[in-house]
């Protein structure tokens, strides 16, 4: 199965994973890593290496990061040049849940595209949607 690694600023990723598991149930092969303001890039890179050893998967690894251009994103990109992996930016709860529910049925590339699509769909102005329906 495709492994999922969430890398963010602070504890955001850990909380996302915890919350997603509350919704879809306990998961194997999912890890969150955070970088704190006092932490060096080397520390994050090391944690990433250790996690990759544990979560190695022939189907590949799907990375979620919070911000395009942020340190988590940059570090992941530099670390995964030679790894079967996709990196998706702008992680939110909906995207993470989508990845967990579809990762056993899609290949890595399709899964990455799917979570992007689902993530975009989930960002909306629901009042407008209700108004369109005359509610």
């Amino acid at each position, binding site marked *: 199965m495709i492994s999922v690694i969430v890398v963010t*600023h602070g504890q955001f990723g850990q909380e996302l994973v915890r919350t997603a598991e509350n919704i879809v149930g306990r998961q194997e092969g999912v890890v969150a890593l955070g970088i704190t*303001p*006092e*932490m*060096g*890039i*080397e*520390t994050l890179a090391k944690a990433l290496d250790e996690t990759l050893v544990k979560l190695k998967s022939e189907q590949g690894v799907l990375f979620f990061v919070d*911000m*395009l*251009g*942020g*340190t988590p*994103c*940059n570090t992941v*990109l*530099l670390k995964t*040049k030679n790894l079967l992996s996709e990196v998706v930016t702008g992680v939110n709860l909906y995207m993470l849940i989508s990845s967990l529910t579809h990762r056993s049925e899609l290949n890595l590339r399709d899964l990455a595209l799917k979570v992007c699509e689902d993530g975009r769909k989930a960002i909306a102005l629901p009042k407008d949607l209700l108004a369109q329906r005359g509610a």
Partner: protein
Amino acid sequence: MGVSLLRIDDRLVHGQVIEGWVKSLRVTWLIVASDSVAADDTQRALYCLAVPHGIRLECLSVVEAAQRWREGCWNGQKTLVLVSNPRDAFRLYEAGAPITSVNVGGLHFREGRVQVLKALSLDETDVRDLKDLAEKGVLLEARPLPLDEPVDVVALIARWQVEHEAMKEQPR
């Protein structure tokens, strides 16, 4: 208007720089002065991804950056120059860059460094280079983000010295 800010930050281009400094100073050009980044296609491409539209990013070696700065190539722009450590800041100075002040942003903790602020840890080399800059009359302020209170780096170095001595005396 040439260089608005020279910042030491071991994360180079990242959220605090883009969301904090680039926006508040209305920076138009971002210069990464680092020999290792200038020589690494992947890192250069990566930092380009991080920069918002309308802002020009150049990754130069320290010597090239010093030369362009000295020659006034960035005049007319609001330029933010990033280096990843105090060594490169001092090398810029030595290569003739007209540096009057340095923002000491982030040097993160690793083995052998003493933490003096949340995102600022220093080892002996860092301290030597910062002291050298201070002796040349360069103003050094520690400040992660524009709205943070600036902290005098010379005072931090005095504190560093006390803690560094204590660390050396500790049995391993």
